[in-house]
């Protein structure tokens, strides 16, 4: 059972079954790890910002680094108009990052390796960005689908293509995170299985691979959180500063 590389992705209930209006709302290991990462973020940032020293300690340094990193990223990609959305993007980045990183601990559960989690976040971003776009520009936001300088004959075709390209945003955003996390964790488990099945004689090579892959996975965990956040910024930029 545990040697199955996909076993790690199974969601199972912890504690009693809770059913409200026909929906299964039981507390699962997925909920547990979401809660854990949210708590970890709160604790890190709370302890990090409690004492404001000139010479920061490690936690303060980390908190300030995260803050600066996201603030700079938003400023670079979406401009100063995107400042009001900093709290949202910061929480998004921290949540994805901590979920990814907690997933790297052996025997833990990676929340972001489930498409339902990432798709929900992506659809939320997609709808929010669309609403922001319409609020800021009214029906002028539809100009996003009509690039300038296109011959009138091609316009209907181009518009349909642009709409498909717009609709593909949440899909690419969510699939990227989910696929990267799931593929990485499956691969780690498969190589781990090789170590056991090849034993003392041949197990050293896959063990080396496992170590290297763990390093790569930590990089990917950070990178995917970064990409998720920066793409949100880029979409926000499209909605705030309409230019074509």
């Amino acid at each position: 059972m545990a040697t199955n590389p996909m076993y790690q992705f199974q969601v199972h209930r912890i504690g009693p079954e809770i059913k409200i209006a026909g929906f299964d709302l039981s507390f699962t290991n997925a909920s547990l790890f979401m809660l854990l990462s949210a708590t970890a973020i709160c604790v890190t940032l709370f302890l990090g910002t409690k004492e404001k020293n000139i010479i920061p300690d490690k936690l303060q340094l980390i908190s300030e680094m995260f803050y600066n990193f996201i603030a700079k990223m938003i400023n670079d990609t979406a401009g100063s108009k995107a400042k009001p959305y900093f709290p949202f993007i910061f929480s998004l980045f921290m949540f994805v990052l901590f979920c990814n990183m907690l997933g790297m601990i052996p025997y833990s559960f990676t929340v972001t390796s489930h498409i339902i989690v990432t798709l929900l976040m992506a659809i939320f971003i997609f709808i929010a960005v669309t609403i922001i776009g319409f609020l800021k520009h009214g029906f002028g936001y539809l100009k996003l689908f009509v690039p300038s300088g296109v011959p009138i004959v091609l316009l209907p075709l181009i518009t349909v293509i642009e709409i498909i390209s717009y609709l593909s945003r949440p899909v690419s955003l969510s699939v990227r995170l989910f696929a990267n996390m799931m593929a990485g964790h499956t691969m780690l488990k498969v190589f781990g299985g090789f170590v056991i099945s090849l034993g003392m004689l041949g197990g050293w090579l896959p063990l080396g691979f496992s170590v290297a892959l763990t390093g790569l996975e930590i990089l990917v965990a950070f990178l995917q959180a970064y990409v998720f956040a920066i793409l949100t910024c880029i979409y926000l930029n499209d909605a705030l500063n309409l230019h074509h």
Partner: protein
Amino acid sequence: MADFKDFKTRLKIAKEKLKKHSNNLNNKENSSFMGSAFKLGTELVAAVAVGTIIGFILDNWFDTKPWLMIFFFFLGSVAGILNVIKVAKRMQEKD
């Protein structure tokens, strides 16, 4: 107060060290390029998938199986390539 002065000189030294390293720090941007590289693949696939799904739904509405799905598959592919070009252009602008 002596402590503070000590801190100032240490800050100065640290800043100078940072300046020396700033050339090496450019390597940091490689990670964001790697992120862009990850981005390109899914961008292409997602648009094709979305196009095909739209075609499938429209087919069910208008009872024109499988023509609209085929048509929208190609439109989706075009949209995917367009997405990749957009991302690549954005990457070039950064340089």
